[in-house]
């Protein structure tokens, strides 16, 4: 099975993600990065570090990051309107019926046997095998059947309750899962913006009403971690709060480029705040660090 990683200019995370796949994932044929604007100097270093990894570019080059630094969101929107077109075009070329999709700020935190999972979900008409989901006291996953292999691999099949559209998050997530190709592609039909998850959920509902026999699975515990060293999206929402994404990205990326960043720090957990602050301290004003700490404390705790 091929592993795809969507990425945008966070090579320090992408490097960690790739290393985690090499460390934890078995049955991986190829690692393919779908890059939407990582700066070329970082891509060159990634290629040197991981010559076995294929990097496909959306064509954004260095311009997208330059526009972000100028906080010119209108220009980004005008010049690079639909990044999801790039993801869907690439994933529709995938010859296999299943693939594992990650984002650059995530990593595999447990052993994952892709061959075993794939054989099992294919046999059971599974369309998704979730490896990550938000931490919530009320789990949307009602486990029906549980497989446990001696090597630690687990596959839990689950049912779910859907009264409103957002309940369909129980069977959908934009990444961090093994997907059946037709399921993922149909959920992205007509999606013009990655953040437009409502359309994705509506598409999911259409799909399962057309194919009611499909099943949904997940790992027993989360086997992928998502990191929050920097905000995940380059949108005005963050900048309006004073959280200027590119400042933090640039600081971490440059230390990584210089070879002075430990991409495995605190693995399998996220980078510790203390470690990140030690990097920021030499490169960012105290006010920016305070805003970042406030964001981490107030908004990110929800996920873990």
């Amino acid at each position, binding site marked *: 099975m091929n592993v795809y990683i969507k990425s945008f200019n966070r090579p320090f995370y992408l490097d960690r993600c790739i*290393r*985690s796949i*090499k*460390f*934890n994932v*078995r049955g991986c044929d190829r690692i393919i990065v779908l890059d939407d604007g990582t700066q070329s100097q970082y891509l060159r270093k990634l290629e040197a570090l991981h010559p076995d990894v294929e990097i496909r570019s959306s064509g954004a080059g260095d311009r997208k990051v330059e526009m972000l630094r100028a906080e010119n*969101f209108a220009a980004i*929107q005008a010049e690079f309107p639909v990044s999801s077109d790039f993801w869907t075009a690439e994933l529709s070329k995938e010859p296999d019926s299943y693939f594992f999709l990650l984002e650059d700020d995530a990593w595999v*935190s*447990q*052993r994952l*046997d892709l061959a*075993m999972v794939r054989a099992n979900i294919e046999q059971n008409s599974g369309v998704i095998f979730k490896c990550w989901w938000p931490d919530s006291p009320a789990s949307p996953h*009602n*486990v*029906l*059947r*549980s*497989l*446990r*292999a*001696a*090597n*630690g691999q687990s596959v839990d099949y689950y*049912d*779910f*309750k*859907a*009264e*409103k*559209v957002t309940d369909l998050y129980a069977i959908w997530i934009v990444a961090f899962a093994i997907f059946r190709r037709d399921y993922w592609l149909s959920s992205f039909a007509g999606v*013009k*913006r990655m953040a*437009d998850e*409502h*359309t994705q*959920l*509506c598409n999911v*509902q*259409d799909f*399962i*009403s057309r194919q009611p026999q499909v099943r949904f699975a997940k790992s027993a515990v989360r086997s992928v971690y998502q990191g929050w060293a920097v905000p995940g999206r380059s949108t*005005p*929402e963050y900048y*309006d709060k004073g959280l200027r994404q590119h400042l933090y990205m640039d600081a971490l990326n440059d230390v990584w480029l210089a070879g002075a960043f*430990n991409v*495995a*720090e*605190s*693995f*399998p*957990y996220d980078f510790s705040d203390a470690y990140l602050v030690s990097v920021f301290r030499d490169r960012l004003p105290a006010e920016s660090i305070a805003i970042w700490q406030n964001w981490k404390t107030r908004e990110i705790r929800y996920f873990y």
Partner: protein
Amino acid sequence: MLSVICFSKDRPLQLEAYLQSLTWYSGLRPSLISVLYADSPEISYDNLRQRYPDVNWRRESSFHADLLDLVRTSRDHILLGCDDVFFTDHFDANVALEQLVNDPTLFGFSLRLGLNLHSLPDITRRGEVIVWDWTRAAFGHWSYPWEVSASIYRRKDVERYLVTTPESTNPNRFEAIRAQALETSRDVVAPRLASFIRGKCLTLTVNRVQDEFPNEFDDSRDTDVQALYRAHQAGRQLDWPSFNGTQNKVIHVDASYFRMCDAIAPPPVELEDVIIQAPAVWLDHRQLRFKVFFWRYVVKLKEAMRPHIPRKLMRLFRKILRMG
């Protein structure tokens, strides 16, 4: 993440069992493993080097300098190992890393200890892991925190110790000097150790490759290093799969755990399939379809308007939504 450093001297047959069983049961790739080996003139590791080209092979020239170099280029955690060990059960190294990252009171994570052994100290259970205070443990292995056959330590800690002990000139000294220093409190480390509930490996004591430390071994069968080397050259292998899931009571096992075979057949991965409940009929497609129909148009409208709404107004909307 984890690097593995395995010590070997004149034991290609046993080392191959270490490599095969470790990669099979842990899923770790050979490229994560370094072997620091010493060989006598009549014993060659060339066959193994060819069979496992992804392993980082380092022929010993100066044990201390070679090891220090390997440690310095390792990842944040190191599994130290010896060629007389083989693994008997699956494990996920991430579990050990989680414990060591989370808990500064842990000195190391043992893969050889577990509740299957004798003379248990006071144990605390954390899911699939057990933790104990080695400074208060009364017996043998439980109060012996530093050992180089199958334990995971923090790289920084291994490096700190190694730079202060240039007299660590072979694996036995590397272990013994610190073990003595800890026993006499000349060296102070974190007070607790952890392991899986069940030990994951055995130490097969059927020969000895040094005379400085007269460790006991079972010589009741023809298992000296020359005999095993000849057998290995003739294509024989240590039959580690036949001890899959062994419930050993002691760490150091005798010649009754020594078996050879012509070819390795890895043990099957057992699968437990439990039906918990029948699917519930929770999905009211008709009702949901209506909501989806409604949402589609709301979202389309929102997405169409989005580029035309001034950023300040969007900011205000979001503030109101947050307040709500």
